[in-house]
């Protein structure tokens, strides 16, 4: 319990303690710069994590709500099997709509790979039927059994084999973002610790004088802790602001399309970057406190 008041006295600050250490020095810029750079990177890690999550959710949701029925049959049987399949699908509970793609729609689907002047009639292209689900969806196993009996050329694709790797990839990307955030935090802590050690070494005479006149370790540490915490807070706030501004500069996803251009936050997740300076300040506080007190103890 005695630790809490001690920590609070470190945060609260003391004008006398603050003044006892000169304010300038390269460690000030080192801490500010490191905190700003780390915060800038942290904004992108958070944005990456948020974008990955949104993308995975969207893909998973879209793929989960639709299925595709592919009919591969001789040309003379294609129309009959398509009609039979549509009839089966319309009778299946959990299916809102079943739409057989027209030649134009299939051409449009294949155009990215084969160009727009594709002679579809000359190719053995299967008939595709788009299935839109409703409610809890349909019983895929039951539908497959019925299709085998009534539409022998039909193959049902409920997109499960696409969804599962996407969900797995998304969770790994989130883990990667989490690990990156930890590494960024660790790098900041390491940088602050080095800066504190350097500052303590540079101010060795000041520490000797303060000890001579009866300063306790916590008094000496207070001057360093408060200063480095504030520097980390200010640096991280600047870095966060720059990172958020950079996100605004990126092309909008609805204009350019694609994954990378969708990097950013949406809705309430715009509040996430606000946590970065706070977390940086907390990390700097503990790093400075630990480095200062351990150094002061080691010197006695």
């Amino acid at each position, binding site marked *: 319990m005695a630790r809490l008041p001690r920590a609070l006295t470190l945060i609260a600050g003391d004008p006398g303690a603050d003044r006892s250490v000169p304010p300038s020095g390269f460690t000030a810029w080192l801490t500010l710069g490191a905190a700003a750079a780390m915060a800038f990177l942290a904004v992108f890690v958070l944005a990456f994590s948020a974008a990955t999550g949104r993308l995975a959710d969207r893909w998973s949701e879209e793929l989960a709500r639709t299925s595709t029925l592919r009919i591969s049959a001789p040309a003379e049987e294609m129309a009959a099997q398509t009609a039979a399949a549509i009839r089966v699908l319309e009778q299946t509970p959990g299916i809102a709509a079943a739409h057989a793609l027209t030649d134009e729609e299939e051409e449009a689907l294949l155009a990215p790979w084969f160009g727009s002047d594709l002679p579809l009639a000359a190719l053995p292209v299967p008939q595709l039927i788009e299935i839109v689900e409703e409610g809890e969806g349909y019983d895929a196993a039951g539908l497959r059994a019925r299709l085998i009996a009534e539409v022998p050329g039909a193959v049902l694709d409920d997109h499960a084999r696409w969804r599962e790797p996407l969900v797995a990839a998304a969770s790994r990307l989130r883990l990667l973002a989490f690990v990156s955030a930890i590494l960024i935090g660790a790098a900041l802590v390491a940088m602050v610790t080095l800066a504190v050690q350097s500052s303590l070494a540079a101010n060795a005479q*000041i520490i*000797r004088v303060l*000890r*001579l*006149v*009866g*300063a*306790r370790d*916590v008094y000496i540490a207070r001057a360093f802790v408060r200063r480095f915490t504030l520097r980390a807070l200010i640096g991280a706030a600047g870095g966060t602001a720059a990172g958020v501004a950079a996100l605004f500069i990126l092309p909008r996803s609805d204009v350019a399309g694609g994954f990378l251009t969708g990097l950013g936050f949406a809705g309430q997740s715009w509040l996430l970057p606000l946590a970065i300076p706070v977390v940086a300040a907390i990390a700097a506080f503990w790093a400075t406190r630990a480095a200062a007190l351990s150094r002061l103890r080691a010197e006695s």
Partner: protein
Amino acid sequence: MIELKDVAYTYGGAELFSGLGLTLAPGSFHFLTGPSGAGKTTLLKLCYGELTATSGEVTLFGEPRRGLSRDQLAMTRRRIGVVHQDCQFLDHLPLAENIALPLTVAGRGDEAEGNLKDLLAWVGLTKQAGQRPPELSGGERQRAALARAVITSPDVILADEPTGNIDWEMSQRLLRLLVELNRMGKAVLIATHDLELIRAAKAQVSARVLRLTGRKLQMAGAEL
């Protein structure tokens, strides 16, 4: 208040002194003399706990030095005013703030204003109050160091060559300050080579003169 019993101190494998005994009782006044390198500064550092004796026992205000925690040692140092030979200061702060530092550190900064004015006048540094320590001469720094050592009215004053860089008139003035404090019951220990200072002090106060030589501490001869 401060007691050394059978104390030895070894530095770098060489024994600086051994079997050393000293008691700084309230109201006592001691001079410490001896050749350079005999260990006078080391003895002072043992008295305020900066160094720990290799053997023997150092007691600070009734507590063994070895048993004091870091915080307790800091609190003990607030009761001891120290004037170092090299007079270190916080060079970025004005002289007045440096002299008031022991009060600031002890959370008694509000007491500084009244004490500071009189003290600066006594040591002749009123005009230099706003200057930074690097702008001061050696003598001014020594006077400032003495002012800093006594501003909290400590129980013990330890001074290492406090008049080394100052003229006779000012050294007499500083001596009067120390004598006044001693009459208030403070224990004073001054390490010095200045025999004139010792004679002048003995004319005003009952002072014991100790000589640290040949690794032993002994009473000085009758010439002092």
